[in-house]
Structures are given as C-alpha cells and as structure tokens.
C-alpha cells in the first residue's frame, strides 16, 4: 500500500527548506493530508498563510515534521477543519488575516478580527472593513440555562480574553472562549523585517516564553542560512531555557494552589520563582532573559553562569522537596485538584496538544526528546507522563519537570566548566548573504513552539510562530464541562495558556 508520506515523493519538494522535508502539493494531496489527520496517522503542528498560499506543518510518525504548501490562486482551498476540527481556529485566523478561505469550513465566524482594525484581510489584499459585528456564541439549549460573560478585562493580573459560560446553577454546560484581544499583527510586522528586528519581535510573542521563542526562531534562521552555533552558546541557550521552565513551573505550581485558596504554597513557590529570576538577572543581565539569544549564538560570554546557577540549583534542591511533600500531604487541597478538569487521552491525541496538558493526559511528546535538538540530544533527562488528565496530574507533571530541569541544569553546568572556551556567537558575514527557509520546533515550558522563516537578502520574506496554546485552549473548554463555575480559575490556571502567544 502506498502511504500518504510515500505519495508525497511525486510532488515538487521545497528545495530551500531546512532541516525537514517540504512539498508543494495539489488540492488532492492537501485533502488527503486532512484525511490522514482525521484518521490519527498525522498530527497537526501548524497551519498558516503566506503570500498566495497556505502552509501546513504535520507531525508524522518517523518522527519528523513535514511542511505542505498549497498555492491558492482562487483564494479558496479545501478545508482541513471540515475533516479535522483542531484546524478550525487556525483556518478562521487564516481567513481573517489573509482572506484565504477553507471551502466548507464549518465555523465561518471571524476569530482574530473583531472588526476594529479599520481594514479587512490586512496581510492579503487589504480592503476597508465594515466594522465590528455582534459575535454569536455557540448556543446551549435546555431548561434553566443561564449565561455568564467574563472578560476581556479579568479580575486578576492576567491577560485579556472573553469566556462565555452556559451554566445550570453552578454546573457548567458549555464554555466557549473568544480570543484575539491581544492580536498585535506580528506576522505582518515580520514581513520585510531585518533579522535582528524579527528576532526582537519573536522574543515578544509571549513574554513568559521569550527564551523558548527566541531559541526556536534562531534555530529556524540558522537552519535556513546554514549557521553553526558554537558549543558554549548551545549550552548557554539550553541553560536559559531550563531557567525559564523552572521559573514558570514554580510560579504555576504556587498559582494553581492559590486558586484553591492555599496561599502558603503560593508564597513559597513565588519566592522560588523570584530566586530563579534574580539568578537569571545576575548571569544574563535580564530577569526574563529577553534578547539574550541571538542569531548564531548568545549575546555575550556570561562568565558568571557556573557559580551563580550552581548556587541556585542547590538552593532549589533544598527548598523544593518540602513543598512537594506539602502538596502531597494536604488532602484538603487535593480535594480540589484531583478529578477536576479532566481532559481525556483521545482528545489530547487528536489535538496533538503539547506540554504539561498533553503529558498529563498520556501524550508522551516533548520536542527536546521526540525531535531532539542540541544540546538535548546528548543530555540525560526523563519526560514525565501521567494519564489522569486532571488538575492534579498537570501539577505533578510540572513538579517532575522541575526536577528534570535541575538535572539538566547540572549537566549543562558540568559541561560548561569542562569545555574549551569558544566564542559566544558565530561569525555571520557570509551567511547573511544567503537565502533560505527554515523550520524549528522547540520545547517551551508550556509546550512546543513552531517557528518558520523564509529569508532573502538578510530580511524576512515571511515568518510565523505557532504557540502551543493553539492546541490547548480548545481542550480547556472540553475539560470544564460538567465542572462547577468556582473550579474554572483552578482549571484555567492548570492550563495556563498564553493569550498573547495565541493572538500574536
């Protein structure tokens, strides 16, 4: 039997793309990709627009990523979402930004476009917009149902988005999110941007994942231009990535418990997070490590890295275990987290959800392992897995990942100490004259970040960054069904999806 991947061999390849294969497909094969996705033989890694075409990144079983490109001269293409619902919001966004529409797209409502930009299809052929329309939420019909509208401005210090609950008393029947409030037009700003500016934008798609984004973006650029990163820089990048994971996981563990009114955990975890950020500041000169990863390496040598981070690791290793024990032994807290907000394994597999959302529901995927990139391909670490899929499982995945990050950090520091000195950054002069296309998948604290770039003459012709939240937000809606309204903050925090990363 000829498999789908085999049949791609007859298509013209995208010659300039590195490091994974890409193909220019026709509508038939595009549709077949949709069938393969629906059958679960491929996973959706991204779907986005470019000038006059749509592109789709797929997880295949090898494991590798395959890029498909379909020219869309008529502005219409066979809808993937009609076959595979995880593509729904991606296709709605594609239509809003480029005016390219999926034929028979089941949900025709706008997604990122709220009618406020003054123009429609800003990245396609822009034309005047007729202005905001009333947004129709999906109906929930039954006796005694009421609606609870929440947002976009929320009660806490969190990002903006609208949640519409349909509830019967305290029990939630349906939740539907409306996002797009933080849409900043980053894909548009990327077009024509010099590489350095594009990198600054990439580092500001989602501030909590600035390292993960800069790391993935730089890897995509370096693949496109065949740049080799010096060994010290590779280790420093991973050191930053693990610090970012530590800071966010510590913060999240505390914040989830705080949403179950267990403030003691929040106080201690908040202090741990602050210690990580201060160590980052001491070594890298920025608490969130923004703009420290640069194309070809890292911005400076960061000589203080080993002693400062050794102290930090020792500090966390001393302080974290009593907090795990505290969580493990506080039954009143577990009464809130265990069995709350369950996402089942089938849904996670269908949405190819990454990060702790996937790994808490049995999807054993971590980009550092499945599509291993330097230096993770030569470091020892475990990818924790749970199958319960509830708030408790998402907390435990984070707890175990804190331990794994410390393990990685120790190995990174050992190697930095043992290594011959090398420049923090590759010389770029020759490479910048090249043109090319690059793809990269990097593991942020929240899940896998996909980066795609096409470069010509030192500028981006096109760039796209896909946040892991695209494949997590819809599952939050599924997880909350049948739960009570008061548990929504708890569930939401256990997902901690990015609004800005999703809205871009």
């Amino acid at each position, binding site marked *: 039997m000829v498999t789908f991947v085999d049949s791609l061999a007859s298509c013209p390849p995208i010659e300039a793309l590195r490091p994974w294969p890409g193909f220019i497909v026709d509508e038939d094969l595009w549709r077949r990709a949709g069938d393969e996705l629906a059958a679960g033989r491929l996973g959706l890694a991204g779907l986005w627009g470019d000038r006059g075409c749509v592109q789709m990144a797929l997880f295949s079983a090898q494991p590798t990523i395959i890029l498909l490109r379909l020219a869309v001269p008529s502005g219409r293409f066979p809808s993937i979402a009609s076959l595979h619902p995880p593509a729904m919001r991606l296709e709605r966004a594609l239509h809003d930004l480029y005016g390219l529409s999926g034929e028979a797209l089941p949900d025709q409502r706008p997604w990122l476009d709220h009618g406020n*930009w*003054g123009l429609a299809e800003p990245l396609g052929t822009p034309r005047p917009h007729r202005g905001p329309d009333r947004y129709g939420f999906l109906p929930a019909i039954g006796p005694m149902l009421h609606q609870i509208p929440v947002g976009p*401005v929320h009660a806490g*210090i*969190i990002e903006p988005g609208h949640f519409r609950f349909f509830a019967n008393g305290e029990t939630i029947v349906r939740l539907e999110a409306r996002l797009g409030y933080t849409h900043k*037009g980053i894909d548009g*700003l990327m077009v024509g941007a010099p590489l350095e500016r594009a990198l600054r934008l990439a580092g*500001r798609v989602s*501030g909590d994942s600035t390292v993960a984004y800069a790391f993935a973006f730089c890897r995509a650029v370096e693949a496109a231009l065949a740049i080799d990163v010096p060994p010290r820089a590779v280790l420093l990048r991973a050191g930053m990535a693990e610090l970012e994971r530590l800071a966010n996981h510590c913060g999240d563990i505390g914040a989830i418990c705080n949403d179950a009114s267990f403030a003691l955990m929040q106080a201690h975890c908040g202090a741990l997070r*602050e210690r990580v950020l201060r160590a980052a500041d001491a070594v890298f000169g920025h608490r969130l490590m923004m703009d420290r990863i640069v194309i070809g390496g890292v911005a400076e040598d960061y000589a203080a890295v080993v002693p400062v981070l050794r102290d930090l690791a020792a500090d966390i290793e001393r302080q974290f275990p009593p907090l795990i024990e505290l969580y493990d032994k506080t039954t009143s807290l577990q009464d809130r987290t265990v069995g709350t907000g369950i996402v089942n394994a089938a849904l996670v597999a269908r949405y190819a959800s990454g990060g702790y959302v996937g790994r808490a529901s049995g999807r054993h995927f971590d980009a550092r392992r499945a599509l291993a990139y330097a230096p993770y391909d030569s470091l020892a670490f475990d990818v924790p897995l749970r199958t319960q899929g509830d708030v408790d499982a998402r907390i435990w995945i984070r707890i175990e990942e804190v331990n794994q990050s410390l393990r990685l950090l120790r190995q990174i520091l050992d190697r930095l100490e043992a290594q011959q000195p090398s420049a923090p950054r590759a010389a770029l002069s020759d490479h910048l004259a090249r043109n090319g296309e690059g793809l990269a998948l990097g593991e942020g604290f929240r899940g896998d970040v996909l980066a795609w770039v096409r470069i010509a003459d030192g500028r981006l012709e096109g760039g796209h960054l896909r946040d892991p939240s695209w494949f997590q937000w819809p599952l939050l809606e599924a997880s909350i069904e049948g739960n009570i309204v008061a548990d929504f903050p708890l569930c939401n925090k256990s997902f901690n999806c990015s609004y800005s990363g999703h809205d871009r």
Partner: protein
Amino acid sequence: MRRILFDNLMRAPLTEPPPPPDAPAAAHLAAQLNDVAFRRLGRSLAIRAVDAGSCNGCELEIHALNNVFYDVERYGLRFVASPRHADVLLVTGPVTKNMQAALIRTYQAVPEPKWVVAVGECGFDAGVFAGSYACVGGVASVIPVDLHVRGCPPTPVALLTGLLALIERSAAGAPSPPVASA
C-alpha cells in the same frame, strides 16, 4: 505544613527594604507639589491592572510585586478586582485595537480622582509593535497618563519606585502632567 510554618517563624523574613526614591521623578514631583511633605505611608492606593495587549512580560513583573520579596501591600498598594474599587489603572501593552474599547470603558468605570500608570516600552509608545495595523499606540494615545514606568519589562523595583512616587503625588491631590520614571 506545621514544620514549614514553624521554620518560617524561626527565620528572618525575605521581605526587603523599600527602594530609594527615584531621584529625578522625586525632584520633579517636589517642584510640582510645592514641597509637600513626602509621606511614605500616608496614603494607600487601590490598583486595577489592565492588559491592553501586552506580551505578558509586564504582567509577570507586576505579579512579582506581590511576592514576599517586594510585598507591596505593606506600602498601602493593593490590587483590586474591579475598576470601581480602584484609584490607579496600571496599563500594559501597545493598546491593541481589539482592546481599545475595553480599556476606555475600564477607565470610565474608575471613580475620580484617578491616576493612570502606563507600564513598559509598549505602554509608552507601543515599543516593537509600533506601526502595526492592529495597535493603536502608547496608552497615552487612548487615555490620559500620569506616570510612565518604562522598561521591557520594567523590573519590580522600577514599578515599585514609580508607584511610591505616585503615592506621594496622590497625597497632594489632583493629577498632574506625565512624569517619566525609571
């Protein structure tokens, strides 16, 4: 849990002394307020944070103000859940067009007297997002701003310094023209 609580009782607190007042901002304020006495704990301010499209970097550092190291409540600074309870709107982001209406409505819901603090490079002039079809521009292009705390993102100390300067100003009464801090 008892052991953790007991250990904490035996240990010095992590909370740190306040940052020194921001000299240029303080001098500017002193001139404007006609040498009003700087009363550090004389007032409290209720703060309502509004994300008007930020990358969430600023939110992380605003959050940090509540951790035990900075502990802003000891200065009388308190984050509240409703604009109707607020004295201060703390606004982040390049004000996306999709958040403009919500920001204006939140501002209108804050009772007088009120102050607006624009946080970050985006809050100042839209930062790296300036010129996008989807962004309006700095916070001041949408609502009147009393204080800018710049930085990408500003550190918790920079935020605290700015907010303490605002406490001193609010003690004197009416809002005044924008002051740049940090």
